[in-house]
């Protein structure tokens, strides 16, 4: 039986506790993970090791998530990668802008169930 290639998820999140929880959830479910605490690092990792999906925090230090998303969408290979944005607050304008740029879905961090996030990612990648 053909072995399925392990999918890679790039998680860009500056809150260490959330980054750790997300990383553990995905690792336990058999994903390869790349972790970035900033948008700049996220772009670097995207170019180095093309991920299959990106989880992107909207509010980041220095370069914000929306700017990173715009750059990603204009980068070679960045147009087709599903991105799920994470927001700490139900900020309509920011999420609305993310929709305009093009995302697979969005999550409000205070409402998120990490197991369900993994299941949602599996749905789109497998």
């Amino acid at each position, binding site marked *: 039986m053909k072995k399925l290639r392990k999918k890679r998820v790039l998680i860009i999140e500056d809150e260490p506790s959330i980054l750790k929880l997300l990383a553990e959830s995905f690792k336990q479910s058999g994903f390869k993970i790349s972790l970035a605490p900033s948008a700049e690092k996220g772009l670097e990792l995207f170019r180095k090791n093309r991920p299959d999906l990106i989880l992107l925090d909207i509010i980041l230090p220095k370069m914000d998530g929306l700017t990173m998303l715009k750059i990603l969408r204009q980068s070679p290979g960045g147009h087709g990668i599903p991105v799920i944005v994470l927001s700490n607050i139900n900020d309509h304008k920011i999420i*609305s802008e993310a*929709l305009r740029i093009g995302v697979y*879905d969005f999550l409000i961090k205070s409402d998120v169930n990490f197991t369900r996030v993994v299941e949602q990612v599996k*749905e*789109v990648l497998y």
Partner: protein
Amino acid sequence: MNGKFPKLDSFFMQFKPMLLRRKEDVLSSVYSEVGIFYLKQGYVRFYTVSGEGDEMTLYIFSPNSCFPLWLIDSKYSGYYFETLTPSEVYYCDRSKLDQFLSKNLDVNLEIMQQLSQFSASIIKKIEYKIFGSAYQQVIATILDLAECFGQKDKEETTIVYWFTHQDIANIVSLSRERVTMEINNLMKKKLISYNNHFIIIPKLELLRSEAIKKDP
């Protein structure tokens, strides 16, 4: 229901927006059953459910659509609206929209256009559902998605959203396994291909003529 309706858009912008994730039930975001929704961004699937629990997708609403216009008193019983993608939706009482329309007769033309497109699509859907094979129904669904999400580059159309076979199965009301089989058939015939998760249609006309073939 594609196209910009600026006056209608401005009218709804005075109300509070709602952001919905993909696969969310639109109706659960409001408490009243006599209102009208305006879809600013995203796509919403309108479907009904039979007594046996089978779903039938009747229409996919695109940005700048109002729904449900066709319900006289806007009561939603028996009909469901589910987001296909993350969406931005506005909502107002039917009476407020009626008041606005009575003072802006030109907007009624925009509404009529929406209703015409809606009716034509429903008729086609019912035709495919009754007379079409699973293969034809899958093609019809892919063509619908191309209409909503398609980006054209010369002759090629790319459906720019990450639809899985399960998503397509939900829209067309077939099993995921059946959809996979029919999509594989389409790929063997080179009528569609995939680039990452985006469906690519090399020539839309070829796919359309495949849908109406008697023995595909």
